[in-house]
Structure formats: structure tokens, C-alpha cells
């Protein structure tokens, strides 16, 4: 066990799985960098340095820099998964799914079911999502609800370094296509992470706080926001449950209902666009199954239904924040 950043935890998971299984390959744009240049090889290791250092262990045969060609990257990775490799393909920013969605939506996600159970597609797609870097409308989206909408694909949103490592190893070993989504703001956060390899099963949400007055349901970067709000409320004598969903597909419905029923007051915090997102989906789930336990209307904290603005003060107003979550909680406490 040692203190590691979210970035280091992901890097270590890749390193260990690649050492364990020679079928694991990393594919993407500048995942090493420096290809074909006279300068440094492994010059980038991904735009934010997450895959840096893997090249010296595995060489260019397994750390595969590609041209800028997301459709071909996703198609190649899907086809490789279908025929014996266990690829980890990088979609640099999730926003670029617009370029290659067919290969995910109509191809890889459907192989197993559409082929009558004969296909196995052990593909992991790693991608960055989320706002806060002033990266504007085409580099700041969440978009995970678009993946949860599609049957056949698993959707993973680690909220901390420990989960990032365990969930990524699980993703790589899993025999279905998985989209593993990394919030850009989390890369420099750190926490205790075991040095050895371990997995966290899919479909098991994590209670990060347990209380009796109010329940926060969160995912990815919003988990830490809710933890902090819970700690603030505790000082005021109110205890909170915080549920970190960890995987959006499969979804741990039992834990969601348990968390909702425990307090009867629910705030769901979701950074994605507000229509047809995870918050609305979970809200429907709770209403269908636990309506009688509710003591107040379910509350959601999401951005408004607009693209992500560039200007720093606008983006701050746009994103879910501790202040917004606590104010929302107070409406029903």
C-alpha cells in the first residue's frame, strides 16, 4: 500500500495487466508519442501523461501510437478483441466519440448478443471526460448517459485512485466491452492504493458515508463533492449517506434503493447534461420501487441544459459544486 495519484493508479493497472497477459495492448493517439521523430520517444505518454513509461516496458508492438482516426482505432480494437487480443483503446477525450460512435454503438456493443452469444469482445476503452479545465464545449462533456443507453457495453466511472486501479484491472479482464471514464480533474488527486494487483467487481456501488438524515448519490468526480458536503453537514448535526455508483452499467439497483430508503431524502449529483442522464434514470428507479419510503421529492444537482461554456466564471456557475449541493440538500433537510 502506498500513496498514489489517480493517474499513477491507472498507469500501474495497465503495467501490471500487460505484464500478466501478453494479449493486452494499448492503442491510441500519442499514447507513447514521439513516433517517427528524431526526438524523445514516449514524448507524451498520453495528453495528460497517464500512459507514460509503458513504452519502455512493452515497446511499440504493444504500445501502439495511431494516426488521428478514431473510427479506425475503435474498429481495430473491436476486431482485435473479437479475434484474440485484449486491447485497451484510448479515446483521448470522450467528446471525440462523435467521430467513431458507430464502431462502439452498432459494432462492438452488439457482437455478443447479435451473434447469438458466440462472440467474446474483451475490449476496454479508456477516455477522459468532464469540465473544469476551461477546455470549452468540445472538450469538457461527460456523455456517459449516451453509453449507458446502449445495451452490451459496460460503463465505469472511478471516483478515486483505489477504485481506478481495481476497476481498470477488472475492465481489462472482463469479456465484454467496457468504457472506462476518467475525470480530468481527478488525475492529480491521491489516495492509498495497494501495490499488488486486485479487482473491484462491477455492479457494486460503494457507501462512502453512512448516515440517517439524507442520501447523496454520486458518480465519478461528484463523489468527492458529496463527501465534503456530508462532512460539513455532520458538523451541523446531520448525518448523510453517500453512495458512489462506481459502475453505471451494470447498475447496483439494490444499493441505490437501500440508500434511498435509509433516509427517505435523496439528492443525486450528476455532471452530465440534465435530460435523460443518470440522475433522471436513478430518480425513476427510486420512484418505481421505493416511493413509499420517500419523505421529500427527489432532488438533482446537474448543469443546465446547455453546452459547456469556456469563460471561467461561466464554467464555475455551470458545474455542480459543494455550494449547490449543500443548498439543495438544505431544501429538503
Amino acid at each position, binding site marked *: 500500500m502506498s500513496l498514489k495519484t489517480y493517474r499513477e493508479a491507472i498507469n500501474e493497472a495497465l503495467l501490471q495487466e500487460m505484464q500478466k497477459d501478453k494479449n493486452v495492448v494499448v492503442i491510441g493517439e500519442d499514447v507513447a508519442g514521439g513516433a517517427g521523430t*528524431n526526438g524523445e520517444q514516449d514524448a507524451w505518454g498520453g495528453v495528460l501523461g497517464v500512459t507514460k513509461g509503458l513504452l519502455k516496458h512493452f515497446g511499440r508492438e504493444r504500445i501502439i501510437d495511431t494516426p488521428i482516426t478514431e473510427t479506425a482505432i475503435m474498429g481495430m480494437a473491436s476486431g482485435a478483441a473479437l479475434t484474440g487480443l485484449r486491447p485497451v483503446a484510448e479515446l483521448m477525450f470522450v467528446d471525440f466519440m462523435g467521430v467513431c460512435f458507430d464502431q462502439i454503438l452498432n459494432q462492438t456493443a452488439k457482437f455478443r448478443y447479435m451473434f447469438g452469444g458466440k462472440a467474446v469482445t474483451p475490449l476496454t476503452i479508456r477516455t477522459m471526460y468532464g469540465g473544469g479545465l476551461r477546455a470549452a464545449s468540445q472538450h469538457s462533456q461527460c456523455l456517459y448517459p449516451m453509453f449507458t443507453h446502449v445495451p452490451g457495453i459496460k460503463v465505469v466511472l472511478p471516483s478515486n485512485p483505489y477504485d481506478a486501479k481495481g476497476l481498470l484491472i477488472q475492465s481489462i479482464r472482463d469479456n465484454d466491452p467496457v468504457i472506462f471514464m476518467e475525470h480530468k480533474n481527478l488525475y492529480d488527486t491521491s489516495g492509498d492504493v495497494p501495490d499488488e494487483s486486485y479487482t473491484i467487481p462491477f455492479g457494486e456501488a460503494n457507501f462512502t458515508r453512512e448516515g440517517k438524515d439524507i442520501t447523496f448519490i454520486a458518480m465519478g468526480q461528484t463523489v468527492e463533492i458529496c463527501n465534503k458536503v456530508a462532512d460539513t453537514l455532520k458538523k451541523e448535526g446531520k448525518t448523510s449517506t453517500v453512495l458512489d455508483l462506481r459502475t453505471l452499467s451494470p447498475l447496483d439497483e439494490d444499493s441505490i434503493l437501500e440508500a434511498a430508503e435509509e433516509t427517505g431524502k435523496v439528492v443525486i449529483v450528476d455532471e452530465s447534461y440534465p435530460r435523460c442522464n443518470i440522475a433522471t434514470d436513478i430518480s425513476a428507479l427510486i420512484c418505481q420501487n421505493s416511493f413509499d419510503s420517500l419523505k421529500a421529492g427527489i432532488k438533482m444537482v446537474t448543469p443546465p441544459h446547455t453546452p459547456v*461554456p469556456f469563460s471561467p*466564471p461561466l464554467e464555475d456557475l455551470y458545474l455542480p459544486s459543494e455550494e449547490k449541493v449543500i443548498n439543495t440538500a438544505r431544501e429538503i433537510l
Partner: protein
Amino acid sequence: MQLNREELLKAYQGMCMIREFDDAVHYEFAADAMPGFVHLYVGEEASAMGICMNLNQKDTIASTHRGHGHCIAKGCDVTDMMKELYGKKDGICGGKGGSMHIADLSKGMLGANGIVGGGPPIVLGAALTYKTKKTNNVSVGFFGDGASNQGSISESMNMASVLKLPAIFVCEDNGYAESTAREYAVGGKILDRGKAFGLDSHEVDGDNFFEVYETAKHVIENARNGKGPALLHIKTSKVYGHFEGDAISYRTKEENERIKNDEDPLKIFKMKVTEAGLLELDQLEKIENEAKAKIKNAIDESKKAEFPTSKDLLTDVYIKY
């Protein structure tokens, strides 16, 4: 040379303005004064100016993530652009877009783009409008050597060829896509891709304003006259890294020096026009100083300008939630 004195001055003014703008952004960004991601165009100025000097206000362009030069060459106001980079309310897009999304439809600037390969398909549409309405306008889509590998580029060139659209595809090949060399990422030749789709395709020395200008003039005139689309493969180089903050470790020191000293389109322009006795050194220096002063003023004004407020968050969309 077909350019008259006034046009030569305009070319140098434009290139200096682009240079000063992006050099200033380089320093502002390094001083932590600027938010977000910025991609600088220093070293590629002759491409934007050589192309855009053949366009009128009704012609359109679609740009890339490295768009400041294209915007300036197409006539966008540099102070409004600078305010946008600082996220200010009276920036060119109200602070909502930032560096990668500068647009000014009144100037025929259809937008920079954060999506590599996103612009050229839009250019097809503009070209279709001109063809349908018989306006004799053209639309120009800029993209990089890295972008040339996107399917959207091939699809656009093919469609332009099939429909004989007044669309010009301009591949600004600076040798790199992020940290990856063109030699590694581009299979075959970019020029041959244009030829394969039946486009009038030319390779151009992007350090030489006059070569860009002349070649662009030829293909743009043809497109205006219904002779169909073209591809220009412009060989150029950029001084700074992919984005600000890039350590550029994938380039050697010698290469960086060569780019700065031997491949500077402003230096080359200056040498050519003074040697030919077309413009005088003091005239050129005056232009450089004017550009410097203009950009300095743009930065001062931008820093003083107001940020947008909560009232601006829910404008420009059709909802109120």
C-alpha cells in the same frame, strides 16, 4: 509578381498581426494570465494570408484548433479575439467559445474547431450554398497533416469532387500531429489523396507567401468559375509546440533552430520584397511596430474587460433550465 504595393503591405500587415498576436498569447499563457488550451500558429503565417488574400468577405473558411491565424487573415477583430481568449463578455463569442471556437459569420469565418477533421465537411455545405445560389463564392477548409488521416477529410474531398463544389481543401502540413511525426502517421502522400479523388492538387512551399498566394489564386479562380474543388498541400512548420505547455521533447534543438531561423515566412517575405526593391525596410519595420502596439492594446483592453455573469449562462440556447 502580380501584387501591387498596397497588396504587399496588406500581406505583411496581416502576417505581422498574426505573429504578434500569437507571440503575445505565448507570453500571456506562460505568465498564467490565460485560461484553457491554446495552439499557436507562429511560423505558418504565409499560409493563412496567402490563401485569404484571394478571398472576399462573402467567401467563407472553416478553421482548426490552431485557428488564430486564419481568423485574423479572414478579418476578425484582434481585440475581440483576444477578449475571447480571456473569457470576457464582449469577446468575439461572448466568452463562451474560447480559442478553439472563434467564429465571426459576418467576416465569413465559420469557426475554429476543437474536433480534428471537423471543419472540411462544413465547407462542403457552404460550397453547396454558393453553387445552388450561383454566387461565385468559394469556401476553404483548413486542416493539418494529422487531420488528413480522418475519414471526414477523405469523405469531404470525394463529395466535393462528385458534386463539383467550389470547395478548397488546404492541408497545412507542419510535420507533426501532437508529438507524432507525419512520416509515421501518414501512409502514402497527402497530395496523392487529393489526386485520387480527382481534385486539382498542388504542393506548396508554405514558407513562401508568394507561392501560396499564386497557387491559391489559380485554384480559387477555377473554383469560382465552376471548375470544381482543389487540394493545396502546404509544407510549413510551427515554432511553438502542439499547445502551450508542450515541452516539444520530440523535436531536436537543431530542428527548432532551423524552423526559427531558416523557415520564417516573415523573414523570407521581407528579404524578397526588399531585394526586389518593392518595399523599403523602414516601411516594413513601421508595420511591425504598429502590429505590436495594436496587440499590446488588445491585451490591455482584454484584461480590463468584464467577465460574463450568471445572466449569460442561459442565453443563446432554447431552454431556461
